[in-house]
């Protein structure tokens, strides 16, 4: 998995390298360009989260897991922690690969977009943080579906749907037209749009969106926990 990620990072940076006029693209700009590949990390995380609980049910190993001297809550929490560790690890691998490849191929010059020096790094990190929050929300959603429906397929499918149809939903149910729409998950997913103190449609702010996302995440976790705790494990 990590290997594919690193390979694609190298592939695309090479494409940028040969596709752009020489010495015009700075290294930080290249990192920024490559960040769309972070979708891959999101997909990996969703796949892992979708299977980590559902897989145990499919294999039947959940029976042997639940008869150890640990409460179900602890088992579910350890599963969640494993997923979170995976997302952090993948994000780190991605970031390192991006920076390493970019600085190998492109000169460290200032360009139109980024000022030279640590400012660029800060902006990249801020962007990555927003993307990571996006990833977390979808991954935890996938984790919940995996726990509730015990089916990895449904979890992957629904999460991908949210990931890619989110923009469409935002267009259909625009907060300006429907006041309730600003509480929808999709509309709040992209925190990057508030960058530099911008205000979203219908008076949405960074704090508002963050709070809405937080409530969704907590709701997902509580649902997963309740279902996992109460479930009768048969067959």
């Amino acid at each position, binding site marked *: 998995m990590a290997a594919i990620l690193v390979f694609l990072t190298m592939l695309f940076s090479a494409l940028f390298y040969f596709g752009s006029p020489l010495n015009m693209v700075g290294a930080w700009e290249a990192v920024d360009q490559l960040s769309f590949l972070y979708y891959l990390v999101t997909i990996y995380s969703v796949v892992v989260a979708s299977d980590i609980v559902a897989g145990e049910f499919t*294999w*039947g*190993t959940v*029976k*042997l*897991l*639940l*008869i*150890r*001297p*640990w*409460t179900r809550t602890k088992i579910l929490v350890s599963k969640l922690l494993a997923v979170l560790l995976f997302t952090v690890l993948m994000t780190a691998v991605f970031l390192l690969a991006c920076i390493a490849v970019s600085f190998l191929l492109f000169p460290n010059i200032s360009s139109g977009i980024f000022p030279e020096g640590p400012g660029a790094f800060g902006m990249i990190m801020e962007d990555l943080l927003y993307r990571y929050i996006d990833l977390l929300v979808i991954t935890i959603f996938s984790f919940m579906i995996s726990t509730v429906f015990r089916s990895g397929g449904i979890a992957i499918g629904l999460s991908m749907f949210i990931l890619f149809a989110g923009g469409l939903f935002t267009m259909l149910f625009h907060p300006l037209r429907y006041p309730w729409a600003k509480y929808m998950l999709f509309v709040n997913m992209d925190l990057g749009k508030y960058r530099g103190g911008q205000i979203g449609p219908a008076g949405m702010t960074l704090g508002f969106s963050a709070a809405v996302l937080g409530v969704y995440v907590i709701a997902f976790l509580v649902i997963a926990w309740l279902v996992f705790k*109460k479930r*009768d*494990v*048969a*067959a």
Partner: protein
Amino acid sequence: MAQEPVVRIQNVTKRIGSKVLIDRLTLDIPPGQVFGFLGPNGAGKTTTIRMMVGLMSITKGDILIQGASVKSDFERAISAVGAIVENPEMYKFLTGYQNLLHYARMSPGITKERIMEAVERVGMQHRIHDKVKTYSLGMRQRLGVAQAILHRPKLLILDEPTNGLDPQGIRELRDYLRVLAKEEGATVFVSSHLLSEMELMCDTVAVIQHGRLIDVKTLGKENDAADRPQETAFEVDAPERALRLVKEGRLEGNHLIVTADRSATAEINTKLVLAGISVYGIRVLTRSLEDQFLEMTGGGQID
């Protein structure tokens, strides 16, 4: 029995929707025994076991394992238990050893030596480092037993453990369970619908049907009671004449069946022989567990 029971199933009811799967089941399991749990398909054996190990919630009542409630003190109750519920499902992409290691990490104080000891107990040392997907059903069953005994449980719960084992495997398992019960002082709780199997394996058998406890029987005491009158069949060449001569019992084909103790059996035999009736065979009709079981469950219908 003076000893504190290992398991106390107290008035347990399990309801799913309007269907009552287990109806006010109360059962104490004494320590150090191989305890059989017998019932036709659908009687509620697996449901009871699932409730004992916390895989299913208990609608009413409680189950205590070594005094700890499965409901409210799960971690303490379950730490004394090793179990296989139905088929032992393992991670197929791992080796047998890796599977055991995974489960060992989830219980405190299991050393690598203990894992290998458990492996040797079930005779898997030659294949333990192969992937589980290459194992036969019997080998998976053995690995399941190894997994269940890793942490030296006080109570070993096995749900239909002989399913899919060949005769040799069944025999080994049987002997092994006896050893466990004797040497490690573990109590073994085995469920099965195979009556003959239970007869050979268990000290005590509880019979359950339609979610209700029907009977608890202690086995292996029949042989001591040789002096007690028992139904005895005489195979003779002239059954009617034999019946007139003996003046009791009944006929079944060319068998005369009389209730008699040992000396009476000898007397009847002398009488028959002196009257010129050929006696081809005499045998005591022990009612097997199977007969008793079918009698108790009335043939057994699933509904």
